């Protein structure tokens, strides 16, 4: 076997999350009351545009979630097959060029020379201090000053054309599929999409997809020869770091909710439905939790975990596993501190629902308590759960950045936007300023959070019964 798969804890949870999402999708498709709001979501222009952007992020994140160890080229003396110690992901493989083309230290985006002066040995034996050429960035250029602009423009054009070709193929495939589904001629469907007359705004979706593809191909083409977003202190490509950070951000945003969801739903509904001492107990529980400063709790947990990990270093096969466990704990502790809001909302809703006539009718018919909760209350609070999930997502992504910045976030060896910002902050004082790490982290995070927020707005509008028909 050329590789052995490695399933990290968070990977397993992501697969679980995917399974849950798929099950929910199947279930929702069969229930009109859930299908109708989602239909409203995909029929909104902002909805589909943000969905495309979020899917692009999700694809990168998922590629980065499939982990394995490659077989080493040569077997050792005993003839045993040996595997490389480092754990790689599909994304690492795809970006292996970026990963391996390391420079010595800082270099600016599209630079051909390092950001720092060095003593250079001249052919004539003299030594001068100057900016040395980069080993990889723009190394193919004979005269960087003259050729660089033309080279960049030319490569961008190639990337643009490649992107457009792929986009055209995908768009044609979509039109063909739609035409076949509706039994209409290809041209008619194309014209309707172009005029924006379809119920699902395909024009917007295709436009966004085109933008994403073109951007990806242009950057991909340029990244073959340049460091598009520069390099960091140890010469690592910043674009690579930013792309690797996507998984961290997405995991924090989704796994945290996955962890907190069962507790919030179960406790919230139980408190509202049963009232009495159960309500008191749950209320005291979340009031107490809420009064502990969240950052303090997170710091304490992470520090404890750090102590544990340094005392039991031999339990972790690789650095990646160590960092992964820390990420999982961060999700857990963020989950513990953030379930109270949803729990409180659900308690209020359950309080209202338990008095409503159909719940009383079910009680009069002798239906058991847990059946009532599962059949009558849970489906009727689902919209609140969904709205909270999408609204919380962006907040959690931002929280990760803040926590990593103050060093109680993810492991320093793990790529994350917070870590990027943290390592870049000292360099802001340098002259000339090193701005690209910060800018890259900001750009990637901003796009994700903006898309998530816009999407959350659309979802809320679609699911909130009070906004219906406005």
């Amino acid at each position, binding site marked *: 076997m050329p590789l052995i798969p490695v399933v990290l804890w968070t990977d397993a949870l992501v697969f679980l999350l995917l399974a849950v999402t798929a099950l929910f999708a199947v279930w929702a498709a069969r*229930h009109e009351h859930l299908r109708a709001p989602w239909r409203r979501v995909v029929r909104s222009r902002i909805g589909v545009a943000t969905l495309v952007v979020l899917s692009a992020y999700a694809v990168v994140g998922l590629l980065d979630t499939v982990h394995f160890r490659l077989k080493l080229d040569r077997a050792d003396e005993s003839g045993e097959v040996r595997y490389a110690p480092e754990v790689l992901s599909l994304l690492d493989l795809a970006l292996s060029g970026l990963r391996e083309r390391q420079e010595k230290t800082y270099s600016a985006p599209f630079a051909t020379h390092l950001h720092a002066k060095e003593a250079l040995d001249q052919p004539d034996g003299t030594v001068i201090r100057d900016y040395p050429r980069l080993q990889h960035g723009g190394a193919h250029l004979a005269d960087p000053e003259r050729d660089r602009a033309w080279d960049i423009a030319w490569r961008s054009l190639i990337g643009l054309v490649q992107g457009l070709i792929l986009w055209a193929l995908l768009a044609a495939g979509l039109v063909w599929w739609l035409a076949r589904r509706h039994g209409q001629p290809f041209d008619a469907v194309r014209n309707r999409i172009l005029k924006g007359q379809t119920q699902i705004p395909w024009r917007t979706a295709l436009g966004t997809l085109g933008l994403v593809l073109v951007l990806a191909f242009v950057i991909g083409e340029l990244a073959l020869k340049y460091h598009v977003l520069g390099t960091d202190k140890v010469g690592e490509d910043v674009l690579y770091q930013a792309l690797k950070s996507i998984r961290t951000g997405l995991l924090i945003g989704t796994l945290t909710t996955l962890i907190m969801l069962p507790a919030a739903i179960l406790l919230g509904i139980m408190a509202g439905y049963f009232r009495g001492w159960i309500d008191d107990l749950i209320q005291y529980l979340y009031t107490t939790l809420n009064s502990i400063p969240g950052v303090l709790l997170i710091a304490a947990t992470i520090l404890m975990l750090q102590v544990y990990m340094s005392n039991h270093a031999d339990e972790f096969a690789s650095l990646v596993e160590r960092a992964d466990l820390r990420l999982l704990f961060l999700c857990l502790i963020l989950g513990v501190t953030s379930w109270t809001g949803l729990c409180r909302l659900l308690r209020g809703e359950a309080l209202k629902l338990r008095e409503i006539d*159909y719940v009383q*009718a079910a009680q*009069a*018919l*002798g239906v058991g308590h847990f059946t009532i909760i599962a*059949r*009558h209350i849970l*489906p009727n609070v689902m919209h609140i759960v969904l709205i909270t999930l999408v609204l919380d997502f962006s907040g959690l992504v931002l929280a990760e950045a803040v926590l990593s910045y103050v060093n109680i976030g993810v492991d320093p060896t793990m790529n994350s936007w917070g870590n990027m910002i943290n390592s870049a902050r000292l360099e802001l004082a340098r002259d000339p300023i090193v701005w690209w790490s910060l800018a890259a982290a900001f750009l990637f995070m901003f796009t994700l959070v903006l898309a998530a927020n816009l999407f959350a707005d659309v979802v809320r509008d679609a699911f909130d019964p009070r906004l219906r028909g406005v």
Partner: protein
Amino acid sequence: MTEPLLHVTGLTTELGDPTRPARVVDGLTLDIRPGETFALLGESGCGKSMTALSLMRLLPPSGRITAGSVQLGGTELLSLTEAEMRQVRGGRMAMIFQEPQTSLNPVLTVGTQIGEAVRLHQGETRQRLGAERAVELLRAVGIPDPEQRLNEYPHQLSGGMKQRVMIAMALAGDPRLLIADEPTTALDVTIQAQVLRLLKAVQSANGLAVLLITHDLGVVAETAERLAVMYAGQIVETAPVAEFFAQPLHPYSRHLLESLPDAGKRGRRLAVIPGRVPPLDTPFQGCRFVERCPAAIKRCRLEAPEWRAFSDERGVRCHLAELDAAGVSSRPVSDRTDSPTPEPLSPTSDPNSPPSDTPTETAQVPLLTMRGLQVHFPIHQGVLRRVVGHVRAVDGISLDLYAGRTLALVGESGCGKTTAGKGLLQLVPPTGGSVRYRGQELIGLSHRRLRPFRKDLQIVFQDPFASMNPRMLVGDILGEGLQALRLAPKRAERMRRVAELLELVGLDPESADRYPHEFSGGQRQRLCIARALAVEPRILVCDEPTSALDVSVQAQILNLLKDLQERLGLAYLFITHDLSVVSYLAHEVAVMYLGRVVEHGRVADVLDDPRHPYTRALLSAVPVVDPEQRRQIIRLEGDMPSPRHPPSGCHFHPRCPEAIEVCRHHYPVETRLGSTRRVCCHCVDVGVATQTNGDSKIRS
């Protein structure tokens, strides 16, 4: 004829998408003269509220007036600018709304809100003058102690008081026309009587014209001089009130009158109007009522009927009326229908001969006996949530339910009648008393031990929209009880039973695969009845099952309930505030006041010869269509006290016109009058003048 104050011609209002508008008001023409009360009558969704909003130019953003003219005292309102219109609103034309609770701002005092209206329309900028005028207005609407009330907040006032404040605010601008949109629908009958009387008094004092929008035929009959009946956005008939009730011309009006329940129709089924109001965004070709009209002829489908005026005051929109236009006053028009025209409503049946459908109760063993049922809700206060008192929602009531018979529980809102019904079913845990079903005590049984009894005791709720889970299919809703009580554990069997049930309540068995929101209010109430019947109960508690429905739909449900009782021998506990329904459907009636039953007896006895002063007041406050049946209204002052602090002695004494000294100190013991009647009143006991003290049944 005097010059009309309000002159509306061809008013047309559209709502929603301009490509497919819902024409909610279509070519409406009416005149209102100074000083008269003009009623606009119609069922929900017929466009009466939209008419009012169009007149005020207060339409929702998606609405627009597309044609017509509205002249108020010679001024064309539709061509005024918005700024000028603001002067008219509340100035020459004021409006009061249905919900007094939501029409007042809860964070401002009453005085501030009235003062604002006064300042806007009188131009009195100084605070003092505004306050003086506010006191004057509050006094005019009969609020006691107005200086005090000015500094109170809306939540400190009762519903009737709030509606009075709303009227005071409407009067602030000294309007010529008052539009009252269902002003008393949210109020109890005794409060409704107060408010209607107040409106009348205000009207005659100020020479106001009132446009009264309502669905209640009784209110129209008692307050208005002329009326217009609206159906699907159009006026289908206008008439002076007396003539209308004597002889309605349009088939829709006739059916409305016939579908009103009352004692005279006891033995019969009520007339129903099949179907529902058509959606207003469909283009109409023929008459809008044709689908529901039993008298429809071919012409009705093809050609929309023209407005036909018989005189200045009388007109109708119907082809059939045109046919016998000559004989409007001589001959009834309803010969084509097989349902009889409303016969002159004689005072309910002869008190000496008991109604034929009343068997002798003594022979029967009650199915369920309730003795001294109490439901007290503790009031918690403070950090430690100590119990500081109790809300005595139900405070010791005793009832018997017999198979095949209906006991009506009557009372105003807040008297505890719904809680009593839920206490019977153990949906609210009772705090005292006993409920025995076939000799077995139900109170105190655990959730599991109660389960065998769930099958026999069922409930139908008031609001058909809230009583079904919107996320479930109708089939699953109806089958829920069968599944929970393991009467039909297999799905196929359950679905077969559901199909039977749907047929039983007159719905298509295909409905099982649809969601509740696809049904109209009346259909939903049928579904709720079917759900309750699924487990084949012996006792059905009906908690105001028709009060959220229109009159014609109410008739369908009442017919259904009556049929089911005859076929299945059900016992009903019918909780309601509507006395006309009681007289139509019930065998016995218990009148509740503040958690206790004050009078109990056979329907004919209680309604014809009420002994408790509260029952008398309640009966007299009900608006009646027939002027000959109208009683002298007994004024009840104030509102029902809070069940948290019931008055000492007889709970009713602060409002009772006949209260004597002993009423203040001792709650009256129950007096039995004959074998079936019980009254809780000192006056009955000591034989103080009641209208009928010659009755031999009184034991002295």
